[in-house]
């Protein structure tokens, strides 16, 4: 997994969590916040976009702090926080409606298709469910089992969605490609 959660980092996290639960004060929370928020915001920004990312991060911390006393360290704190953030993103997609899993690629952007686009732009064009699998697997290094748990799908679906999403990314990144695959 590419997420940085070395033994040293986990020891520091345990100390910070203990300090927070003992005091529940702002300083102790601030230390946790500043340590983990950049990755939570980066993840939320990729999954929901700039407009909603800050809301997702705040909601993640509210849920995490509420559940922290029962956190059993079955995973690293960072992995747990990311899972909460992904769940917040999924709820946001559902509330916003209109997201249909059978759509692999979002409607065309305003610029002509003959322009080459970078990988960030191509990622942004994937439908949320497919984008989430690529982001979680190929950027954040989660396993298919972890992704399946986070997205409420099975591991086989995660694998097949990753394959389709990568195929769509390749097509989007190739300015010669006239055909962007879709799923119906």
């Amino acid at each position, binding site marked *: 997994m*590419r997420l940085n959660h070395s033994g040293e980092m986990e020891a520091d996290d345990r100390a910070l969590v203990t300090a927070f639960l003992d005091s529940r*004060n*702002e300083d102790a929370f601030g230390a946790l*916040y500043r340590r983990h*928020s950049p990755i939570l915001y980066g993840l939320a920004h990729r999954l929901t976009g700039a407009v909603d990312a*800050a809301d997702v*991060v705040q909601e993640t911390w509210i849920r995490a702090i509420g559940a922290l006393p029962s956190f059993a360290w079955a995973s690293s704190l960072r992995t747990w926080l990311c899972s909460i953030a992904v769940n917040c993103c999924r709820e946001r997609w559902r509330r*916003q409606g209109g997201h249909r899993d059978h759509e692999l690629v979002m409607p065309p952007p305003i610029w002509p298709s003959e322009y080459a686009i970078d990988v960030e732009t191509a990622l942004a064009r994937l439908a949320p469910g497919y984008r989430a699998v690529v982001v979680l697997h190929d*950027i954040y290094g989660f396993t298919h089992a972890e992704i399946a748990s986070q997205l409420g799908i099975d591991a086989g679906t995660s694998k097949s969605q990753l394959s389709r999403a990568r195929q769509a990314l390749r097509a989007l990144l190739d300015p010669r490609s006239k055909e962007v695959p879709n799923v119906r």
Partner: protein
Amino acid sequence: MSADHGHEDDELLASLARLPQERPAPAGLEVDTIGALRARGLLRSREGGWRIRAASVAAALVIFAAGWALGSRAMLPAANSYRYMLLLYAGDANSTAGDASVEEYRNWARRLRDDGRRISGERLDEAPAAVFGAGGAPGPDRLRGYFVFDATNDRDAMEIARQHPHVRRGGIVVLHRIRPT
């Protein structure tokens, strides 16, 4: 994966792996989050709460010194409302709109927030990170910032946009209704 896609996939995976995992959270989000945690009884203030109030004031200033990020956090969308985007452009090459008006813009945004509307915004770099396609008027090089807010309909949104201080300062304001996706 088919064999002829192997090399392309290697390049794609390398490109994806190079993308940064982290991104700095907006200025002011920490204070907003502390406030939301305190409101839910999940956090104790340090000493009687005066420090957090002072921090809130300081952070509000930081928000608008660094940009115009105004948290919509902990607010729910109003029923039967739509989201709109307000794009703020410099009026001309010499326009100062937006340069020294953060307090005015903050007050405008606060009035909407106090009215129960979700609103967020950011100041943008003067130079666009990238430009695709044919540019309309005004050009993307004059884009200075944006706000996203709720309004009940186009007329409501236009009234809100019309009252933005950027207009009085000679700037150009472009309103878009956000299409749900």
